[in-house]
């Protein structure tokens, strides 16, 4: 079954700039992956319970309790730019 993929659009959505050569390389690689998925999809799965997670576990909750936070200096100091104890980023729009 033919699988089509608009690699340029995928790259745009992920905000990754790709050269024409890279577009071709990744396009081919992604197609391989999708074709593999196609093959898996073609397997007879009638009577098999759908699975949404590989582990036979659910929830994994934690109680609503407060734990320690980081010292702001410890992570702000690693940011490219900060101002008034906040991360400073370029204008958004």
């Amino acid at each position, binding site marked *: 079954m033919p699988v089509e993929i608009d690699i340029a659009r995928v790259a745009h959505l992920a905000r990754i700039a790709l050269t024409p050569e890279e577009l071709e390389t990744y396009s081919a690689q992604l197609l391989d992956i999708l074709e593999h998925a196609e093959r898996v999809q073609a397997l007879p799965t009638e009577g098999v319970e759908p699975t949404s997670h590989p582990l036979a576990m659910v929830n994994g909750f934690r109680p609503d309790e407060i734990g320690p936070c980081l010292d*702001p200096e410890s992570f702000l100091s690693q940011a490219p730019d900060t101002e008034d104890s906040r991360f*400073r980023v370029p204008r958004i*729009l």
Partner: protein
Amino acid sequence: MTAWEAVIGLETHVELSTKSKMFCSCPTDFGDEPNTACCPVCLALPGALPVPNEEAIAGIVKIGLALECDINESSLFYRKNYFYPDLPKNYQISQYTFPVCEHGTLDVDVNGEPTVVGITRVHMEEDTGKSSHIGDGGGRIHDARHTLLDFNRAGVPLVEVVTEPDIRSAEQARAYAAELQRIVLSLGVSDARLEAGSMRFDANVSVRPVGETKLGTRTETKNVNSLRSLQRAISFEIDRQIQVLEDGGSIVQETRHWNEDTGATTSMRVKEESEDYRYFQDPDLLPLEVTAAWQDEIRSTITALPAERRVAIIEQGVDRETAVILVDSDELSGLFAAALGDGVPARTVALWLTGDVVAYLRRNEVELSSTGLTSEHLAVLGRMVDSGDLSSSAAKEVLIAVLDGDGGPGEIADDRDLLQVSDTGAIEEAVDAVLADNADALERIRSGDMKPFGFLVGQVMRHMGGKADPSVVRSVLEEKTTDSR
């Protein structure tokens, strides 16, 4: 002229008031110091893994149950991918297919006209950090030179309640929002403070000619942070869209921004391409399982919802509007409920609380708790009116004196000589005296002309210094004027 119909759907975000965040143990109650409630999970440091807060799941199930939703026993967390720095992961953990709650309803009443608003879904997600846009435009994103980020709020549990496009007017939208706020407050799962942003609304609005079944192009209005603004923003948007269409234009699907000062919505951005959040199941999180047993356990913690409490009060003979005010205030409804009892007129007490008491508190800028008014005071005062010992106007005077701290109702009525005489002996004497002085009036009544009756009641009241119970005066007078001997 075309008659237009508005079609409105609301998305409401409610921050849950858990102690810790949704997927990490940072506190949700942080001060003003930026970035002090952050850890590797909510900062998205490499390798950090989210662990869901059980209390938050219980909170969303509570909301879902209160909105008559089906609770999915099995639901999943998804990643909503987008590029915006308010969440450092570059995605928000949310839900897509299989939200925790689906297919609910909320009954809304506008001026006695009931409407059922369908609830499409209620899903669990996480709040974003706070962005401050720095520039010349006074915080406006378009004029910003750069943006500062504080991630204290990032990861606070957030519940999104999405309605069906069932709402037809700005008033209905407001009534829905107000009722949802009441429900959330009464469940105790959020402080639902609009001005603080812990409850926020987005309004999807479109218009279409009456009779048309297809939906018109809609806009989404954001930044609405009060019930009044919600109503105003939707009204504005409905009028604007009708104007555009009547002028031969077309509506652009876009996000619009409500400006409180100008009272108008303005275009924020046109969506260049249909949004593609590339939702996929978050591999870091296990499937959620809310078993029937857990649902029952959560259901058992839900006390009577506002609508139910209003009905109970209305059944006591109180009008709807008064019942709404009572139920909206835990203090007032608490006093009301505790004051009820044998011989206590529920309607009168309800009107005192929502009328005289509320006005008193506002006028004197005091809290109810500091006045010392108790349910016992209200019960005693209610019984005094019911038995005819106190006229309704005298009762209001006593009520104000009780609020002023002058003492108990009995004592105040006594001190101020406000008690009515309902002792028929004294009243009979007064009636006899008045009738003796007004022989012609008596004659007219006996010949079938009832006009002087009111005059005679007034005379008796005057004779008694205004302290007679008028209903007793009437009945004695009736008896004596029809008595031909």
